[in-house]
């Protein structure tokens, strides 16, 4: 990827200001870090992990999980991991967070987790006194998560029981191996460990929030800000230039909640934000021009765009029709002209960051490669063979909440019209749009963005029966069986092989018109140090990233902010 190139050119502009002291500078403590996060438009959905709101790790900087990505293995520190995917950490990028070590054992199948000793829950008035974090906390959390009335059915079906073996050891007894075991209760969306005192005081009330994490929630104004103050007794440290520093560096992290894009950009430009994590490519040029000192990184969206075709309706039950529609859309032209190069032709359903699972287009079989070429003549021929020499008309639903998709769909419709296929566009409001799919009442065409999540879930949730996020309704019994096999395979390499085969197969089946995936940009001011645009070290889990950032407050002053 050319992100190094990008950072270099951005740096060149700031050389005069920032470069000279950058190498030898000693980290500083203190300051307020103001962030427009990836989810800057939405306030917390819930502070209670038992509510199973997807954003819970993002909003609960005060909670920690058993495992987390190891930032020492980030690209910035010479490693190979970007730490940007929203729901995935590679197995070899993991380290223990609340856990010190873990080990798989047989007969019965179980994983034994040794917890770090000496981690303390901070005191919180009206909720709890400071005390040590112990194995019972993990067990109690797990039990509450499983029995929550909002829990997903069978989410932990592979777990037999969880026991506190001793004060600092927890054992998960498994019915069978499950590839997502660490994701589901180790570093996933609903993996936060919280004290039973919090449950008693009311976990849904933000005023009660308390955890072992680097920051503690100190103020919350719905629709405006979430303020997190430094946890002075946080256990973790970072080693910079051979020296060990206690974390976190900054006194306060503030999430600025801003619904309006223009407002976000204005706040970044004027230094009211230190970091803005998600900027659409459309706005990048104008921000660069007006604030040339900003540092930049880009990330390929962790969400694919496609036009799904319901395979249980005519004419999409015919693979020739589905492939024809793919051939009729000039995807290279979309990347080049519509996105102005800010997109990748091929990055869904697997994401290039998914090392070991992703295969680039040139390694794909011809049946897949062909789908990404523009060949309207062949498309017409396929339609003729399928019995639609004059094309046809079909209805496509799209969410009016997504300006990008509302722009893109007419573009796709324009291409299809050239082979005689007409789209009747039906925009729906967010809730209505989503519910059409989850209740399977959606139209033959369904134009959406769907998160990759992680390398297994990305095709599991879309192409196996009984799932919510598979608008094409494409599935095959053998395919499902192979998918189950992948989930039960413990060996990473073996599982990756199976998943690669499954990916190739579904790509060629063309249940979707596969479309390019766009880039997003992260920008930050040069006074933000020990940071290179990393976004998460677990499922929407940014706390360790923010804990390691320090602010060069003199530079900030010198730059007039």
């Amino acid at each position, binding site marked *: 990827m050319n992100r190094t190139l990008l950072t270099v050119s951005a740096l060149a502009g700031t050389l005069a200001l920032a470069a000279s002291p950058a190498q030898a500078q000693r980290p500083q403590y203190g300051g307020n870090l103001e962030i427009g996060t990836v989810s800057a438009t939405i306030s917390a959905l819930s502070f209670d992990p038992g509510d199973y709101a997807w954003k819970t790790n993002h909003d609960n900087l005060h909670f920690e999980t058993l495992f987390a990505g190891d930032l020492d293995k980030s690209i910035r520190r010479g490693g190979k991991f970007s730490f940007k995917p929203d729901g995935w950490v590679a197995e070899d990028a993991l380290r223990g967070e609340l856990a010190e070590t873990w080990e798989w054992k047989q007969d019965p199948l179980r994983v034994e987790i040794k917890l770090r000793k000496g981690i303390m829950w901070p005191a919180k008035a009206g909720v709890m006194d400071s005390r040590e974090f112990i194995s019972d906390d993990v067990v109690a959390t797990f039990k509450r998560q499983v029995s929550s009335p909002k829990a997903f059915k069978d989410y932990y079906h592979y777990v037999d029981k969880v026991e506190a073996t001793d004060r600092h050891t927890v054992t998960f007894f498994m019915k069978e191996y499950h590839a997502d075991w660490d994701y589901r209760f180790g570093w996933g969306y609903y993996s936060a460990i919280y004290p039973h005192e919090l449950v008693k005081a009311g976990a849904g009330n933000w005023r009660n929030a308390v955890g072992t994490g680097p920051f503690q929630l100190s103020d919350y104004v719905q629709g405006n800000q979430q303020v997190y103050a430094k946890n002075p007794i946080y256990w973790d440290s970072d080693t910079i230039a051979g020296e060990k520093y206690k974390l976190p560096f900054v006194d306060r992290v503030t999430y600025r909640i801003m619904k309006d894009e223009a407002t976000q950009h204005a706040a970044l*430009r004027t230094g*009211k934000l230190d970091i803005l994590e998600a900027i659409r490519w459309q706005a990048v040029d104008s921000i660069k021009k007006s604030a040339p000192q900003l540092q930049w990184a880009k990330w390929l969206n962790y969400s694919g765009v496609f036009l799904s075709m319901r395979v249980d309706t005519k004419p999409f039950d015919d693979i020739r029709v589905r492939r024809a529609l793919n051939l009729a859309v000039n995807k290279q032209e979309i990347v080049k002209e519509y996105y102005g190069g800010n997109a990748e032709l091929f990055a869904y359903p697997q994401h290039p960051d998914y090392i070991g699972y992703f295969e680039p287009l040139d390694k794909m079989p011809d049946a897949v490669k062909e789908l990404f070429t523009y060949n309207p003549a062949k498309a017409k021929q396929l339609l003729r063979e399928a019995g639609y020499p004059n094309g046809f008309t079909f209805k496509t639903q799209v969410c009016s909440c997504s300006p990008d998709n509302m722009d893109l769909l007419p573009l796709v419709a324009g291409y299809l019209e050239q082979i005689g296929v007409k789209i009747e566009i039906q925009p729906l409001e967010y809730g*209505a749009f989503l519910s059409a799919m989850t209740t399977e009442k959606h139209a033959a065409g369904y134009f959406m963005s769907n998160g990759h999540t992680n390398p297994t879930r990305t095709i599991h949730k879309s192409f196996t029966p009984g799932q919510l996020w598979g608008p094409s309704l494409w599935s095959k019994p053998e395919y499902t069986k192979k998918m189950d096999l992948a989930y039960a395979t413990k060996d990473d390499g073996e599982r990756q092989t199976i998943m690669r085969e499954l990916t190739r197969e579904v790509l060629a089946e063309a249940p979707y018109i596969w479309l390019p995936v766009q880039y997003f940009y992260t920008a930050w001011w040069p006074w933000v140090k020990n940071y290179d645009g990393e976004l998460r070290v677990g499922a929407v889990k940014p706390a360790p990233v923010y804990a390691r950032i320090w602010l060069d407050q003199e530079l900030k002053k010198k730059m007039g902010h």
Partner: protein
Amino acid sequence: MRAYLIRRLLALIPTLFFASVIVFATVRMIPGDIIDLMISQNDISAGKTDREQLEKLLGLDQPMYIQYFRWIGNILFRGDFGSSLWQEQSVIAEIGERLPTTFQLGFMALFVALIVAVPIGVWSAIRQDTWGDYLGRSFSILMLAVPGFWMGTMVMVFPSIWWGISPPVKFVPFFTDPIANFSQLLIPALILGTSLSAITMRMTRTMMLEVLRQDYIRTALAKGLGERGMVVRHALRNALIPVVTLIGLQAPILIGGTVIMEQIFVVPGMGLMLLEAVSRRDYPVITGVFLIVGVAVVLINLIVDLSYGLLDPKVRYR
């Protein structure tokens, strides 16, 4: 007067009953219910959550009329508007956090509107059909004609590009730091106020024109009483009626908030709260906000109607 008041208050009951039924039923008719939204949180889970389990938890498994009577009963007998289905915070508490800000922004906007409208209205009446009249009115109407979100965006974006400044986005409660609080609300209040000014300006102008045509004024003018003193005196007395009318007309904004200004200037007000509740299908919040805003607006209008009687002896209540 007392009979009138009692009649108006009694008439509130059917009004609110209609309103509550309409709102209660309507929000549940929005396609894509809260269960669908909650279930689709499970992007990453293995299977479907039990629909029935969630419906039961949220009390949505009962027939709608039972839900309605339970809801209205709790409000009438216990003053309990229920809690958010997502956040478990009580609706009253959420409104309590937002309403003061909305109210404040609304009043600041009204204040701006009057400062702009009354002088222009008076001036354009005195100088009817002159360039001064046209210019003054044109300004006021132009402000009405510019879409608020466009104005707001320009104020947000261009100063940040040209001079590196942008309006504050950090909300500070009034009693913590009144200055910081004011400086965030000032710009949206200015935009909102100037766009509201056209209505009041028109009203003031018409009233002034009427006053100026009265015989006693003409007589006074003929007698050589100073024009300025007279205009000021009458303008002030007559300005009160447009003020009161404006409050009545803008009551929904005063209580219900202005989604657009709140969104652009990051004001945590009622408008955005309701918009978010609608998009999350948080039924108790939507119905609670509607009901409270509705009651408040109706009451404000009642007070407005009553105050006409104090301001203008010609008005009689029937």
